[in-house]
């Protein structure tokens, strides 16, 4: 059994810090995730991936991702996690060879065809088993370990106690979801979308049919959902902050954030918060206090209702998402810093949302750094002064009296 903690200077510390694994929908998000503290990122290529539709990663982008990640000591995993049909059984070998030569650290797969092909074609490429296989016990994990799987992403149906028990018996490394959208069904076992829209959920087509509005009837046609007007199957998003200490103590190997479709505002905030939480806990677990800071910070990026999923045990009505319109607005993301001129105290930024002079903003960066400011002057690239930043992705100059860095993010402070 691997050592999880140790005593340094008479103080217990965590020596086995789990990996923080973040999603990245494109190269910019990948860089943000890594800058804000992810130890590894997962991306979907344009083929064989459940998010292929939304993928911006060509082989060249993957190469660049790996280069950037290596430079920052981070890892890159590529999802090849479809459950293939006969028509998808071609061209995999060349694709896997390409991924391998890009230097990716692992692929995340679910179909034995992909696993077998990878073992044959790229025997040195690490294989992770996707959560699509809904693995819920150590014997199943050990089955896959014997098949050459290095790491298993657990099903999202498990409590912290189950995860602990599994971890103590599993031969493969264990990855656990801690944040993001989740299936209400056992993953990989839902074909609502296939049946209702012809879109194959196990090949990247899920139409989120579980979130649609239904009416519920008794067998004698009595309508049971008239009180609310509708019935939903869906789940709140996962948010595992309260369980991070337990997960760290259980010795799991990787903590995973979901959301390859999310914005850089979301990625930077969520990754930054979990980074801080993990570091704070590991350095002094016995005096760690789970204060509101973490919850408050993450809520700035989160507009969907969250819950702890199954981590506390079988989900109740509190973990369900009924289509009551309760989405909270997120704090608005207005720009990202590209550079800073220390002499002139002028930051170059890329605009992401409408803002005006006089706006109160929060600027935050990697390492949980935060500063506040009221925007006094805005210029365009030719240094013409403007009052309103209204063009998406326009490069602007703004006066900032303290030092900021590339990748720092500017968002409006929340009106209370």
């Amino acid at each position, binding site marked *: 059994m691997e050592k999880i903690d140790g005593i340094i200077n008479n103080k217990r510390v965590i020596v086995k810090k789990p990996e923080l694994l973040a999603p990245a929908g494109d190269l910019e998000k990948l860089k943000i995730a890594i800058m804000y503290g992810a130890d590894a990122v997962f991306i979907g290529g344009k083929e064989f991936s459940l998010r292929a539709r939304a993928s911006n990663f060509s082989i060249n982008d993957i190469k660049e991702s790996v280069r950037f990640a290596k430079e920052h000591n981070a890892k890159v995993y590529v999802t090849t996690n479809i459950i293939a049909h006969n028509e998808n059984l071609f061209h995999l070998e060349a694709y896997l060879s390409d991924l391998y030569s890009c230097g990716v650290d692992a692929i995340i797969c679910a179909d034995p065809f992909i696993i077998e092909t990878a073992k044959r074609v790229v025997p040195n490429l690490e294989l992770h088993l996707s959560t699509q296989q809904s693995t819920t016990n150590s014997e*199943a994990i050990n089955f896959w370990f014997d098949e050459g799987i290095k790491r298993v992403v657990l099903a999202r149906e498990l409590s912290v106690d189950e995860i602990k028990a599994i971890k103590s018996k599993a031969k493969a490394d264990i990855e656990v979801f801690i944040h993001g959208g989740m299936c209400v069904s056992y993953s990989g076992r839902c*074909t609502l979308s296939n049946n209702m829209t012809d879109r194959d959920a196990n090949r*990247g087509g899920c139409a989120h049919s579980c979130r649609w509005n239904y009416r519920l009837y008794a067998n004698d046609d009595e309508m049971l959902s008239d009180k609310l007007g509708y019935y939903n199957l869906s789940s709140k998003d996962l948010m595992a902050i309260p369980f991070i200490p337990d997960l760290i103590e259980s010795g799991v190997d990787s903590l995973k954030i979901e959301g390859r479709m999310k914005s850089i505002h979301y990625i930077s905030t969520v990754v930054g918060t979990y980074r801080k939480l993990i570091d704070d806990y590991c350095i002094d677990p016995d005096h760690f206090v789970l204060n509101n800071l973490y919850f408050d910070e993450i809520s700035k990026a989160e507009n969907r209702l969250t819950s702890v999923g199954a981590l506390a045990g079988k989900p109740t009505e509190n973990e*369900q998402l009924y289509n009551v319109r309760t989405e909270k607005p997120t704090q608005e993301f207005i720009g990202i810093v590209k550079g800073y001129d220390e002499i002139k105290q002028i930051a170059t930024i890329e605009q992401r949302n409408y803002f005006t002079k006089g706006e109160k903003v929060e600027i935050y960066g990697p390492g949980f750094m935060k500063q506040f400011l009221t925007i006094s002057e805005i210029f365009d690239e030719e240094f013409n002064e403007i009052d309103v930043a209204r063009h998406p992705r326009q490069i602007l100059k703004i006066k900032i009296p303290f030092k900021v860095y590339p990748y720092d993010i500017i968002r409006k402070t929340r009106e209370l």
Partner: protein
Amino acid sequence: MLELIVSPTSYNLVENCDLCDAFILGEEQYSLRLAHYFSFEEIVDLMNICKNRKQKIYIAVNKIVHEDELDKIDKYLSKLSGLDIDGIIFGDLGVYNLARKYNLVNKLIYNPETYVTNYESVEFFAKKGIKKVSIAKEITLDDVLLIGSKELIDIDILGHGALNMFHSMRDLVTNYFKFLKDENANKYHNEQLYLIEEIREEKYPILEDQNGTHVFSEKDLCTIKYLDKFIENHIYGIRIDGIFKSDEELINIIEIYRLAINDYRLNKQLYIDKKAKYLENLENIENIRPFYEGFLFKKTIYKGGENGKN
């Protein structure tokens, strides 16, 4: 010649039906979505009856196994290893690992519902030394036949029955009524309800039981017209699922499939000529659930690939 496998609706039905080649029997704590659950004693009794009639018995141990259930499954497999059963249906690969201990691997039938959708995957499980693989019902007839024609291992598929299309561990009916603060929140546990989506008309049965919540298709998949193709492409068996059926409805359905297979055996042309008749007979069964061709001719959209459509 195409094994006719039935997931039965009652003890009585098994006791009295000699028309099929095999039954799937299971206990509630080890299996999922069976039309009827049996006790161990009943299974043993029925086994003896069926053996005398040369019918096979497959035991369903197809639940998704959580860590604290491994012991229970282990003990059950040990118990099953003392019985003269013909197969064990499983959907969780943990069961495979446990079955090794009891030399049961060659009895295993892998049915994970949605995961086996291509012949390479079938080949992977064939190499694991198991007995049979049940392929997914979400693929087209052409794909089913292509997989069968590879003759990698015995294959079975759903022949007639509802498509289960959703399984959550959660009590999604009870949770809903708790959310509504309904005092009788548990009232509908184990009761068959149905859902209708806002802009659709289909009625999807929804059932909450001790394994969570299941949602099914409105109609039953019906494959009576394709039995010749199955046979010619080496599909080994078809399953008739009793879920949402009475004994009588199920018996009637079994009779028609039995007749169709026997007709084919006598004379392929006879079977072909009678296809319309079988369908008519199915339709004439009182109260029969509506049926359709499922995914046999409905190719689902693959979102991946360089040119992924939509």
